[in-house]
């Protein structure tokens, strides 16, 4: 039911976070009552674009207009609200300490005065019933008490509640990531009905069949740009994956750089993690000198597995055996990695303090040497290693975190999607480095959301909903195979 009327128009929207260019000039039109699907790899800029659309982020450049080209100045959350733009954010934005009904109130300034609670609860219940019949959610429950899936249902239903302003557009950023198949089905069929009522929707998901059935038009984003825009009926899964995936020639290059021999058998085993009772799935093991990739969609248990291994060193845990000291390279620099008050040199040495001691005290000379060595080896671009770590660009900060782990005595290096914000040339350096270190006997466990990185691994475990659903050896590792295993859905399609 695509109408020619424009609900909202984004024109040449640009947005950068420091050195990371999240949106490199995006122009996107959403028609009145149109169902738009948005896909792209992790970090392609989908969420950023939707944040701009919801008024949460101010773009660095570009305009937003509504109602036939009328440009909206000072587009912010309030303006978006007035226009009837609603958003189900990727990270849940309910207040966990409030009840379901109270969370509906948060979205509607008009819900107050006598009996507001009844009205709010009625409103959200009505929507829940409309979208997810048989949901079994009591609007008086506190959100923190709901399972993740039900929270997601509440958040979706909340976005469709109406008090005074009619809804123009609902943005759903990976709404099905924590819904079970039935609920996802219910949502898709509701979107069809809603759009008949003139409500436009933007549906973001990594589950391609879902997108293809939910949307009339599909837009593919890659590296902050729109690389494909077409009618859903004319697109296939293959075309979409191709447009958002790594180019074929890059793949072959990666493959050629990789080691061909695979002599796992005669090397001592360093890591063995058997599935925890509740989760099921395959076991994970790695030997000396292995580079093992952990693949799958973001948030399907890869980081949890790495933390489990990290904590297991030095402990007797039959389910998780780790035979050598471990070091971790975090990907989320801000919350897991960088010590912002410290110099680059201190940030690197913190994992190796024990060995830098002389007469019980950390020797500044050795610390300096260590920093100098790694500045050289991994190429950290700074005039002085005593500068604050935040003076580095994101990619170089990440290199410092690599240096921290590699400089240590650890025999096992855990990498938690460590290439975020790292530029292409640096990546190449780091890949070579990892390969060299593996040859010297170190074991790498490497979680990555970027497809081409996985091709630098000897083997790949694919994760889905906390379980390992596939184990692919070098010969079996193709983009298609990995994607198929990652997108393993209710149909039970497991490699």
């Amino acid at each position, binding site marked *: 039911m695509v109408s020619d009327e424009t609900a909202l128009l984004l024109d040449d929207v640009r947005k950068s976070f420091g050195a990371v260019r999240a949106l490199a000039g995006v122009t996107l039109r959403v028609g009145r009552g149109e169902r738009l699907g948005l896909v792209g790899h992790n970090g392609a800029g989908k969420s950023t674009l939707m944040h701009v659309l*919801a008024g*949460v982020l101010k773009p660095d450049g570009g305009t937003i207009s509504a109602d036939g080209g009328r440009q909206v100045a000072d587009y*912010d*959350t*309030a303006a978006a*609200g007035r226009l009837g733009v609603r*958003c189900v*954010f990727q990270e849940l*934005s*309910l*207040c*966990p*300490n*409030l009840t379901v009904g*109270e*969370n509906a*109130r*948060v*979205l509607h*300034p008009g*819900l*107050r*005065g006598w009996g*507001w*609670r009844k009205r709010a609860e009625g409103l959200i219940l009505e929507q829940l019933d409309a979208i997810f019949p048989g949901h*079994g959610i009591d609007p008086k*429950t506190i959100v923190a*008490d709901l*399972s993740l*899936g*039900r929270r997601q249902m509440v958040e979706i239903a909340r976005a469709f509640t109406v008090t005074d302003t009619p809804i123009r557009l609902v943005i759903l950023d990976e709404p099905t990531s924590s819904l*079970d198949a*039935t609920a996802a089905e219910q949502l898709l069929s509701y979107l069809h009905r809603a759009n008949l009522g003139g409500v436009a929707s933007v549906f973001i998901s990594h589950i391609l069949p879902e997108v293809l059935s939910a949307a009339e038009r599909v837009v593919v984003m890659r590296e902050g740009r729109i690389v494909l825009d077409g009618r859903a009926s004319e697109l296939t899964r293959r075309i979409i994956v191709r447009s958002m995936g790594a180019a074929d020639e890059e793949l072959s290059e990666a493959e050629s750089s990789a080691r061909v021999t695979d002599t796992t058998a005669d090397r001592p085993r360093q890591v063995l993690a058997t599935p925890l009772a509740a989760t099921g799935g395959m076991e994970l093991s790695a030997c000396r000198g292995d580079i093992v990739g952990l693949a799958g969609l973001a948030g399907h248990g890869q980081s949890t597995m790495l933390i489990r291994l990290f904590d297991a060193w030095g402990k007797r845990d039959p389910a998780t055996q780790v035979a050598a000291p471990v070091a971790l390279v975090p990907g989320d620099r801000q919350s897991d990695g960088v010590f912002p008050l410290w110099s680059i040199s201190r940030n690197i040495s913190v994992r190796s303090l024990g060995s830098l001691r002389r007469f019980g005290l950390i020797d500044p000379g050795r610390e300096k040497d260590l920093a100098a060595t790694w500045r050289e080896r991994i190429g950290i671009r700074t005039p002085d290693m005593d500068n604050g770590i935040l003076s580095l660009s994101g990619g170089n900060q990440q290199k410092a975190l690599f240096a921290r782990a590699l400089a240590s005595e650890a025999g096992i290096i855990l990498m938690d999607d460590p290439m975020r914000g790292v530029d292409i040339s640096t990546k190449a350096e780091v890949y070579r480095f990892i390969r060299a270190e593996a040859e010297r006997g170190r074991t790498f466990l490497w979680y990555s959301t970027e497809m081409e990185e996985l091709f630098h691994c000897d083997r790949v475990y694919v994760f889905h909903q906390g379980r390992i659903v596939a184990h692919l050896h070098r010969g079996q590792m193709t983009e298609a195979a990995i994607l198929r295993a990652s997108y393993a859905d209710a149909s039970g399609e497991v490699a």
Partner: protein
Amino acid sequence: MTAASLNARGPARFDAVRLLRMLLPAIALSLMLAVIFSQQPRAMSYVGLTLLLNLAVPVILATLSQLCIIAINDLDLSIGSFVGLCACIAATLLKDTPLLGVAALVAAVGVYGLVGALIHWRALPSIVVTLGLSFIWMGLAVLILPTPGGRAPEFLTTVMKWKPAFVPLPILYAVILGLGMHLLMRSSLGTILRGAGGNPKALANAGWSLLRARVTLYLMAGTLGALSGLALVGLTTSGDANMALRYTLLSIAGVILGGGEFTGGRVNPVGAVLGAMTLTLAGSFLTFMHIPPDWQIGAQGAILIIVLALRAVLNRAEER
């Protein structure tokens, strides 16, 4: 679906633990009362309950004030001296020049709001700002009332010494305050204020001003603190700058005991009222237990530890 059936069993167990945790202050309170009654049956009367609990009224008000601050993930170390200051204002200015007294109280509450704004604008740690503020309140109180004295205005004594039929006054006030705050926090405005502590980002995304939420809560805290000072003066009939310093700790402990948490906007007004009464009674409880004088101080610490440790145990049970 397996997921659904798992979920169905989950909340039921959680609820039992949560219920126990919510009832903890009530249980502690009834236990102490039971021990006191068995030691001294005559405490189980209208007069007895009035005497046991009437000094809990200002503590309850101070605790609710602290609750407002904790609701937005801050902490107020100045509430004790603020209550003292308001008591001094009530016993002097409010008695002698009512207009000036009211103006002074309003100004003091206004300063609370400004401090909230300052904390928000500069992203300051509330602990240190309110620590400094406590010196200022204390200094002002000593300036207003250099030596204990003054007299409570008649209306305050009347309000605090009133003997309603059937229900002892402190219990009546506790119910009114508990219910009132409960309703306020459940109101459409209170919902937003608690939401600001629960998920500030979500609230900002929905177009609410966090600054306004914080200032509102600080103003509410100031008002409740001022009321606490007035209630205190009504009971003691005169003012003293050092009178309520202990309320700072009592109020924090009361909120936590009542099921509140330092972060996440999780506060429970009814629980806090019960917590405040429990803590007030803890002191009395020891008087009835005939603890040797040397250990009377330490026993207070031990009671605090026991009750809070119990809460931690229940919390952990809930996490599982």
